[in-house]
């Protein structure tokens, strides 16, 4: 690898020099040049390089952020998977089939008999039981450190009967989790939850091989083994080629024991960068196949690389992905605050914000103004569901007057909080300018993330920003978490018993269409109260290289590596 690398560099240098001497002008990226039409059939081979930040974990038991999840979902198959074609649907993965009982409290999953870990061991229902109990147990050992390190994503399993006992340390195993036989897994929930089939698609709920988790993973070179967390073995289309090179890269190669179709790619190299800006420069230099586009460069990138047709799939010359993500950026208004508990004031604020300006300036028009808390592409989303979530200065002024603060008179300077360093400053500057325009003065209160989170936790905030990313493409994931009076994520402190009841009732409906309809109604109900001001829906701002084909990066932020391939004549550029 290294040797080849140098040769490549030397060749480039020599070619470059020759070209410049001869006045040819060098070798520019061939992105825009039409290729010979031969290469539309997938071919095997090649390694795709993919930008991620340094993950916290790639061991599924504690894999939470998108960084680690990119790797985990290449290494593992959970029971179900989100349909690459339509992320609001789930398709079979490790489970061939599944079925809930009538009120969606007992779920039975039938595993695919061909399922194997990459070391050849078959995947059994017991592996799921082990993996899930491992997540729930607060004493679980982090294999990389050898110390107890509770999973912070155990909330995925919160509905399983017996979870609370395990979490509280009163039991070791969840009573609701049973391996009926090698290929049958039965899950009993503590309350009806019709969306459970989406939950189990999450990559962190994948099966893990107990022997390797507890005994270490052979690295393949000599007798040495490394902690499972450094080189997880899974049942997915790829397997680790070598232990995780922290802060540098994670290399995975095709798993020949995979139950599904073998991947075309020889492997994927997840290259770790601290910030997307650098990664993007590397991409421009031709050193990366897939990355984010930093702020300010999106239009430039579209001009250079072309915009993808569906917003999710990379094709040559249509390489910039701008598909909506299932997440919403919103401004919390503390519903228990002395001033903000005034519904009309909240309405005035939400009407005053020029969402389009934010999308146009900060994101170069590549995000969409939010007209609901539920993002498009999610079952239950209805355009314009939140009637006041639009820019209307006159209406805002009227609402402000109705609130008892005509022209802002009588209203103190409100605190506008956000976490620093996350690129929120500019959005907040725009919000501040808009609020000022109708007479509401605000002052910034920015803090480092942990400080900010604590402030929100303590409920001291007035106006604050947050973003909510769907774990699974279900409305419940948004509406319960953000607006149920019992939810700890309800940072707006919105309390509406009718909404609490309605959400609970909706989860008993096993028919997905009917359930979606119910959630759409709940969404509108909440929207009428303006507990928060949805600002915009996130969209992808990613770009792939011209040589990768059929690579789909879906709305949930998962890359579909098993179907991707690299054009044979695709140069590094």
């Amino acid at each position, binding site marked *: 690898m290294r040797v080849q690398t140098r040769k490549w560099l030397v060749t480039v240098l020599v070619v470059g020099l020759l070209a410049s001497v001869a006045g040819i002008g060098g070798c520019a990226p061939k992105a825009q040049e039409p290729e010979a039409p031969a290469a539309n059939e997938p071919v095997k081979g090649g390694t795709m390089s993919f930008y991620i930040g340094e993950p916290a974990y790639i061991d599924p038991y504690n894999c939470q952020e998108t960084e680690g999840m990119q790797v985990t979902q290449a290494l593992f198959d959970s029971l179900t998977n989100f349909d690459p074609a339509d992320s609001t649907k789930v398709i079979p993965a490790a489970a061939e089939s599944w079925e809930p009982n009538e009120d969606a409290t007992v779920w039975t999953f039938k595993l695919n008999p061909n399922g194997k870990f990459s070391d050849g061991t078959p995947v059994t229902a017991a592996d799921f039981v082990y993996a899930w109990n491992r997540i729930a147990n607060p004493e679980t050992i982090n294999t990389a450190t050898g110390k107890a390190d509770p999973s912070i994503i155990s909330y995925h399993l919160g509905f399983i009967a017996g979870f609370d006992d395990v979490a509280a340390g009163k039991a070791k195993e969840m009573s609701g989790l049973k391996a009926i036989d090698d290929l049958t897994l039965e899950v009993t929930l503590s309350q009806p939850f019709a969306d459970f089939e989406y939950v189990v698609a999450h990559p962190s709920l994948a099966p893990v091989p107990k022997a390797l988790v507890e005994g270490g993973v052979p690295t393949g070179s000599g007798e040495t083994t490394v902690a499972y967390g450094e080189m997880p073995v899974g049942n997915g289309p790829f397997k680790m080629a070598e232990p995780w090179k922290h802060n*540098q890269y994670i290399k995975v190669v095709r798993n020949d024991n995979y139950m599904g179709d073998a991947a075309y790619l020889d492997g994927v190299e997840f290259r770790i960068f601290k910030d997307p800006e650098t990664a993007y*420069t590397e991409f421009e230099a031709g050193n990366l196949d897939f990355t984010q586009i930093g702020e300010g460069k999106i239009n430039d990138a579209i001009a250079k690389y072309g915009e993808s047709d569906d917003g999710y799939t990379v094709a040559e010359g249509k390489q910039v992905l701008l598909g909506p993500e299932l997440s919403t950026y919103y401004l919390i208004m503390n519903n228990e605050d002395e001033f903000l508990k005034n519904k009309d004031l909240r309405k005035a604020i939400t009407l005053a914000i020029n969402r389009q300006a934010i999308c146009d300036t900060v994101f170069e028009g590549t995000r969409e103004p939010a007209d609901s808390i539920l993002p498009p592409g999610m079952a239950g989303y209805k355009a314009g569901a939140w009637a006041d979530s639009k820019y209307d200065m006159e209406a805002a002024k009227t609402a402000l007057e109705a609130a008892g603060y005509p022209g802002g008179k009588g209203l103190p300077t409100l605190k506008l909080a956000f976490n620093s360093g996350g690129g929120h400053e500019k959005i907040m500057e725009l919000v501040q300018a808009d609020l000022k325009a109708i007479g509401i003065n605000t002052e910034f209160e920015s803090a480092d993330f942990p400080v900010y989170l604590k402030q929100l936790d303590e409920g001291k905030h007035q106006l604050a920003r947050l973003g909510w990313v769907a774990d699974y493409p279900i409305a419940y994931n948004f509406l319960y978490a953000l607006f149920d009076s019992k939810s700890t994520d309800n940072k707006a402190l919105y309390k509406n018993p009718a909404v609490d009841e309605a959400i609970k009732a909706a989860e008993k409906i096993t028919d997905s269409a009917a359930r979606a309809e119910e959630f759409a109604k709940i969404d509108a109900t909440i929207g009428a109260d303006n507990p928060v001001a949805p600002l915009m829906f996130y969209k992808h701002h990613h770009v792939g290289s011209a040589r990768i084909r059929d690579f789909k990066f879906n709305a949930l932020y998962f890359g579909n590596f098993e179907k991707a391939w690299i054009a044979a004549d695709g140069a590094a550029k």
Partner: protein
Amino acid sequence: MLQYITKRIVQFVPVFFGVTLALFLIANYMPGADPIQMRFGERTPPPEIKAALIKQYGLDRPWYVQYGKYLVALSPVKSVNGSLQWTGPDLGTSIYTGRPVTTILAETYPHTIRLALVAIMIEIVVGIGAGVISAVKQYSIWDVLVTLSTSILVSLPVFWLGLMLQYFFGIWLKGATGGAFYLPISGASSPFFPDWVHMILPGITLASVSTAYAARIMRSQLLEVTTQDYIRTARAKGLSERGVLWRHAMKNALIPVVTFIGLDLGAMFAGAVLTETVFNWPGVGSTISRAIFQRDFPIVFGSVTAMLFAVMIINLIVDVSYAFLDPRIRYGGAGE
């Protein structure tokens, strides 16, 4: 000499306790942050899980207990099953990633040291070279150039210099040569360049200010030394100008320069926050600053501890080499 080293180490003790204690107090009396919550991002965890983590990191204990535990864990020799064993210092685990701080340091320190050595090489070669040229050719165009460029270099914001280098060598040059030639502008390694190429721009950036200072010190020292009586003596003895410069002036002039470079190396071992941030260099400087932002105090304490020891050892080496260069120190009593 031994006495000298002992004295140095004795002086280090209050510095070590002062800095670490200050850190602990800062960490404890200005909390306002929830580092545990940081792990969960914008999602609030069940209270049991959070409590388990707080307990695990000992964050529920008073600060002096935490400090005491930190000091005990720091000892590389510990009692294991009743007998003393070499276990190496234990710096705890990162709150954010759960990984051992020693592992994180073992990953980041080599990068920091590599970059520091490159920068020091630049500093020695370019800084001392430019200083010598400008002193020897005083008032020449070279002297003016060196003087002016050192003034500019010490007035440059390091991070801005880094960004400009990135623009010219990573972006503009690439466009100008049609992608044939450019330098990598981030990270410590990539499959497309040998590792040393990655060190060029961050190395230059990190070295910039110090190189300018080294050149200035070298120049002023050499000019100062050449006015010394013993230089006149050397000339009067019939030494050639070259002999005077290299045999008599250089060694004397180098003493303060060596001190400066040594201390600078020590400072670089402490991590170059700005350079590492701009170039995404996976070293200890960027790790510490990120840990501070994340309130990942085990990493902050661990890195600072390692840093203090590194700086102390470098300073010790500098002192010893200083004594080696200057017999007045070696033989005690500075003459007069």
